[in-house]
């Protein structure tokens, strides 16, 4: 996980001082991570819009960034709130049963288990999305941040503004549910 290096703070200072264009460097630095997270949380169709909104919110709140956590942690905090809002607002489609999910995944599973290198990034993300849809939004976000972005317990604690003990509890529950699904597939 990227620590809060001097260049992040330097860019933030420049932007706050009025050099709006410098913010593009931050976007380029974090667009990949953010899009990956949004994709896993809100799905492919809304991921780009969600990521744009998150960057906009980050820009407007830049004056409130105190530097006590890394910029990426702070950005993930904004992203979590935004994605959870989207999920709670939109009408939930009827949750597919696990059997229907396995049927849908069918052809993908042999390809992914046989091939250690995931050749098709799109299909992998699609599969992750299908599995994560089975979890609650809170379980989904904490799992995505831990597994995809490699956030430590401390960073997760800062992102969600909860204690590390609570992080462990939530992560445990999310994994327990996730593994129950995974066991049926693998």
């Amino acid at each position: 996980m990227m620590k809060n290096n001097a260049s992040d703070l330097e860019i933030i200072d420049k932007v706050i001082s009025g050099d709006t264009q410098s913010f593009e460097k931050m976007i380029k630095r974090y667009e990949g991570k953010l899009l990956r997270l949004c994709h896993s949380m809100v799905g492919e169709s809304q991921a780009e819009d969600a990521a744009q909104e998150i960057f906009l919110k980050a820009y407007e709140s830049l004056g409130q960034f105190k530097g006590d956590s890394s910029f990426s942690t702070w950005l993930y905090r904004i992203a979590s709130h935004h994605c959870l809002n989207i999920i709670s607002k939109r009408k939930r489609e009827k949750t597919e049963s696990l059997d229907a999910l396995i049927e849908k995944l069918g052809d993908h599973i042999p390809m992914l288990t046989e091939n250690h290198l995931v050749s098709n990034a799109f299909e992998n993300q699609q599969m992750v999305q299908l599995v994560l849809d089975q979890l609650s939004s809170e379980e989904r976000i904490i799992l995505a941040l831990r597994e995809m972005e490699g956030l430590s317990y401390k960073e997760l604690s800062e992102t969600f503004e909860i204690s590390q003990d609570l992080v462990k509890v939530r992560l445990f529950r999310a994994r327990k549910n996730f593994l129950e699904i995974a066991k049926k597939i693998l």
Partner: protein
Amino acid sequence: MEYHISKEKIYEFYDGELTESESRRIESHLAVCRECKLEFELLKEASRLFFEKSEAIVPPGFSEKVMQRILEKEEKREKIYRGSVFDLFGLPRWEVLTAYSVSFLIFCYFTIHAVKTKEQAAKNPVELIFNQEETDSLIYSNQEINKESLLPMFYESESNSEESLYDE
């Protein structure tokens, strides 16, 4: 093997969140306990399968789109500012805001002061009357002074006129 490590500990071990001594202890246990090792391997395989890091697909021109939205918002904000009363003399917003705030505070002070003065006057009407009487007495005394000053002149003039009649 009777003794098993809790799933929580296995997950923490997988996440690399344990101390060195705890990690060594669990590693030793996993080497001899099939059940715990299976749990660990399942987590590892599922994570690898479902979350193996792949490069995110960044749509072309994504950062440019975001910057465009940011600049549009900034432009809109600037337009609103420029058309407003805050755009006096082209001063920065905060200076104009400070000037307006200070003016407003001064205005409030004098308004409150005027209201308080009126309230005080309304509370003590009797004093006003006394004041009026005093004022009246002053006016009358002025008139008396004038009369007195006038009278001798009147009498003098009269006497002068009589003398003149009989003065041949």
